């Protein structure tokens, strides 16, 4: 059997997550000697925190899609818009490249992020040894792509500021936007609290 590669944890070294300095601690609760950030072998309570945030995001995802994110009122007639109807409207307007972009950012990205986080959590929980490299890449992708879901929130912020012409036309934000913003923020925190090194720890235990 091939010998397992050296890891920082196995050799008793700690990696600082902020400044990436490697150090060795002889005391409990150490701080990075260079930047002062608290040092941990793994992110503290990574699985519990990531589960909590991911489940919160799932719950918020329901009102985010069912409730209107904004209401367009023109000459007294109000029309509530959800995330999905906003995409549909762009599509009907013949703006399919933009419709595709918004569909990707507001629907594909959050759903994919939730599913990937759930999969990664389950795979770590069941100590899966399947394709750790690919799972790590999946994690990196999830972490970097989440911010793009904010497009819809920004569109609402711009529209409410511009379209306030009294009885002629107004746009008001809706409660769905709060829930949607919540989904984006909680999934970003969830991705940050997940420690991808846990994926590799399952391989480590084999060799002992």
């Amino acid at each position, binding site marked *: 059997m091939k010998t397992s590669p050296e890891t920082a944890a196995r050799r008793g070294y700690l990696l600082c997550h902020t400044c990436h300095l490697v150090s060795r601690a002889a005391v409990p609760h150490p701080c990075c*000697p260079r930047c002062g950030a608290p*040092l941990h072998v793994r992110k503290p309570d990574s699985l519990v925190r990531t589960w909590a945030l991911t489940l919160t995001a799932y719950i918020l995802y329901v009102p985010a899609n069912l409730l209107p994110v904004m209401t367009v009122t023109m000459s007294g007639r109000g029309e509530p818009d959800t995330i999905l109807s906003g995409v549909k409207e762009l599509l009907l307007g013949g703006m399919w490249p933009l419709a595709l972009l918004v569909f990707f950012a507001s629907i594909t990205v959050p759903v994919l992020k939730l599913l990937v986080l759930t999969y990664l959590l389950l795979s770590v929980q069941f100590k899966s040894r399947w394709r750790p490299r690919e799972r790590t890449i999946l994690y990196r992708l999830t972490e970097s792509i989440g*911010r793009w879901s904010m497009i819809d929130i920004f*569109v609402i912020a711009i529209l409410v500021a*511009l379209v306030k012409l009294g009885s002629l036309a107004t746009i008001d934000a809706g409660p769905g936007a709060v829930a949607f913003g919540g989904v984006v923020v909680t999934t970003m925190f969830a991705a940050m609290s997940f420690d991808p090194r846990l994926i590799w720890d399952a391989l480590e235990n084999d060799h002992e």
Partner: protein
Amino acid sequence: MQPHTHQGVDKATEFVACHDCDLLFPQPRLNKGEKARCPRCGATLFERKGHSLDYSLALALTSLFLFVLANLNTLMRMNIGGRVQSGAIISGVRELYDQGYWEIAVLVFVVTILAPLLKILCIFYVLVPLKLNFRLPKAVQVFRVFETLHPWAMTEVYMLGILVAIVKLKDLATIEAGIALYAFAALILFMAATDASLDDHEIWEQLGSPLEDKP
């Protein structure tokens, strides 16, 4: 709970570890423009970018100038049948707040205004003293804030939001771009260039070493 402490913690600069898979290996010597990648999971560990501090500072200064322009001017003017309504970046935040959605107002304010501004100011606070070889208090903490802010500064995402908003409004009204729109478009380019030029690894090394004795 016991407090965190520096005492009894020794630097092991001869090693680097992968933040994604924990692989430990000896510190590689990199030439300018080279990247260190983790052989096991492929993560980019660091990069010797080789740009001078002046280069990053010049880009950051331009970004600051554009940031001020983008935030103090009109972003867009909308004309519906002779009635003109103009909006700046901050007016979206204020309007959301007035409508009672303070949660989104705070979120939009933080990711489009506060985080980008703080990022630029952090760069000045850390880089200017390094350049002129003096120390400001808490420079290390300030640079930690800078690193934490990174995912929360969403200027480029906001730019796409502007684009989508313009398309949604174009059947309804005539849209006129304000100075802030051009400034903001330039800002995202300069902020991206600033980020790309900054070598965090090098800056942490310089922050962690004692002052040089320059004549």
